[in-house]
């Protein structure tokens, strides 16, 4: 507690040591943008002049709120999204995670300010305890989730993805540990369940220096429509052939649904590779990424056999990065119809770093322009057909987003 108070005095006079930490934090923010922003002159500004203007202001600050206000004023000069200062307490919430990725076997989304179970994995601990889609998770491990969601949702520019992760961090933990959950079931009756966390679904996929991730892929038929879903654009040696096999097995399908809801992205090149099974015209691209010292066109390489029927891509606020590049590019090319809710608007590697004074600093290091000419960062992909998950639909056993996509595909078939 003493450390927390020393690191993040919310109000009152700052000590000399705290003022020095704030100066160091200012320099960290300024230098990071100078060195890592995709433009040599960030935001078209004389960045050194910005430093010289704001450094004296930081030196005069007397409270942490003043410090944050000055830093935010400086970031506002960029007129770009995803540059933010996150107060210490909120940064702690976002970064909160226990060791381990054990899961009770259900997935949640923040719907209307509440953590709602959207899916229960068959055979999981949660399934055996008869947890159902549509139930509200009122608390996990003694933490009430609705206030957490409300607090995080109040932060401007915070990705919905970050919010979802903060919620999931309260639900997951070390495999083998037992966690107490208080649910509100379909009748809003309170149910307390102690669930033993199990290893997550999928296979562990290492990728260089990155921490290994559990990656899963599934494909099935919904009537005569192909349905594909995978949790990350990783493990390409397994996922790419699986995607290709699913497409090739669906050459006579009425359409294909690619469900990217909850998919936070991964290896950008996989978006190009997958699009190659859906686009038969050479030379098309999903968009262009601008980084310091490099401009990369996300060019589609058509496969010898492509699927030419209707393609629906499902997205939500947790569809980020490569998911947005894939969905946004196919939408701009007129190759896919997008269903769901607006994506995370986090097409880029937007990072959150801890500052010397304990606050968090969010910053983007590249700009990505989708083929339609619009930056994805800060805008996201807006669905052609906006369909929201609702608690009522989930309780009734429906996925309204999938239903809307299937309906569109059937109408396309009928129109032929």
């Amino acid at each position, binding site marked *: 507690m003493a450390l927390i108070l020393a690191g993040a005095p919310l109000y009152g006079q700052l000590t000399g040591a705290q003022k020095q930490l704030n100066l160091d934090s200012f320099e960290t923010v300024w230098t990071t943008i100078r060195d890592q922003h995709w433009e040599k002159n960030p935001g078209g500004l004389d960045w050194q002049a910005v430093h010289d203007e704001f450094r004296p202001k930081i030196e005069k600050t007397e409270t942490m709120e003043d410090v944050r206000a000055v830093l935010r004023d400086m970031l506002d000069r960029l007129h770009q999204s995803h540059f933010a200062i996150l107060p210490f307490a909120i940064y702690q919430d976002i970064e909160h995670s226990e060791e381990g990725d054990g899961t009770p076997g259900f997935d949640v989304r923040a719907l209307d300010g509440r953590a709602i179970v959207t899916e229960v994995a068959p055979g999981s601990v949660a399934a055996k305890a008869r947890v159902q889609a549509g139930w509200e998770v009122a608390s996990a491990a003694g933490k009430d989730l609705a206030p957490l969601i409300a607090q995080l949702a109040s932060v401007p520019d915070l990705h919905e993805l970050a919010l979802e992760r903060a919620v999931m961090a309260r639900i997951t933990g070390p495999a083998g540990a037992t966690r107490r959950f208080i649910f509100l079931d379909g009748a809003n009756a309170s149910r307390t369940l102690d669930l033993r966390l199990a290893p997550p679904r999928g296979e562990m996929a290492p990728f260089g220096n990155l921490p290994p991730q559990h990656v899963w892929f599934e494909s099935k038929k919904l009537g005569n429509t192909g349905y594909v879903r995978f949790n990350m654009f990783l493990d*390409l040696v397994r996922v790419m052939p699986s995607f290709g096999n699913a497409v090739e097995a669906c050459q006579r399908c009425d359409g294909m649904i690619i469900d990217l809801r909850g998919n936070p992205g991964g290896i950008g090149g996989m978006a190009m590779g997958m699009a190659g099974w859906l686009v038969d015209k050479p030379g098309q691209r999903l968009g262009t990424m601008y980084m310091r010292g490099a401009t990369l066109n996300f060019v589609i*390489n058509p496969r010898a056999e492509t699927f030419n029927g209707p393609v629906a891509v499902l997205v939500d606020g947790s569809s980020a990065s490569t998911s947005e590049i894939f969905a946004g590019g196919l939408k701009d090319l007129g190759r896919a119809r997008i269903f769901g809710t607006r994506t995370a608007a986090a097409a880029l590697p937007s990072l959150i770093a801890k500052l010397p004074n304990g606050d968090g600093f969010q910053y983007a290091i590249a700009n990505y322009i989708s083929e339609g000419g619009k930056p994805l960062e800060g805008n996201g992909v807006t669905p052609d057909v906006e369909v929201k998950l609702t608690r009522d639909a989930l309780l009734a056993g429906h996925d309204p987003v999938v239903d809307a996509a299937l309906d569109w595909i059937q109408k396309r078939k009928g129109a032929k």
Partner: protein
Amino acid sequence: MRNLTRLILSGVVAFGVAASGLSLAQPLPKAETILDRYVEVTGGKAAYDQHKTEVLRGTIAFPAQGLTGQLTRYSAAPDKEYSMVELGPIGKIESGVANGIAWEKSVILGPRVKDGDEKDQAVRESRFNAPVEWRKIYSKVETTGVETAEGEECYKVVLTPSTGKPETQFFSKKSGLLVKTTATAASPMGEVDVEVTVSDYKSFGGVLVPTRSKQKAGGQQLEISISNVGVNEAIPPDLFTPPADVKALIDKAKGK
């Protein structure tokens, strides 16, 4: 041979050229002289002419990403080559040139046939014994100055191919060996500036070959280390034949 390393990397790059120290006092040697000297100091034309095939084996690494893998490159006179990189979680990446067709196949992007500048570049770099064949590869060569590269004073030679962008090679004034190359690589994702430094020359079949290279491209760095060059090894002729899925693309493009 000296094009090998750049060839494997074509794909990434961005760089800051470490150069300085113009020397204005002495007349510069002709580029032709520098390029021919390179052939001499690496073994001489007669030694190169003894080589009919080469099989190069080594490792490839992206240190910042923690990715490492194996590479093998087969080449045969006059202009056939097949390369294979196996890079852990990225999978296998194959590429080849034969009969004027350049192709690539990877897990991530699938098979593709190169065209335009990218194809011209691949065909150019597939030429066997490239150092002795430079007159057939470049339409113009020019010495433009003296610069320090990798701590060595070097002649800076700009080589312009008949198609595509010029590249710049830095040859040690002292040893005559190639030290660095800067070029613009054509890739499906766009043009990428590439900087390649080479070192640790070793003799294989009487010809000195750089066995280490460090490359910067597109903000990434990669390192290649050559462990062996098999000279005049028997290479199955069909190794240079494009795989079936590449052939399917070629046929599709022809409307078959």
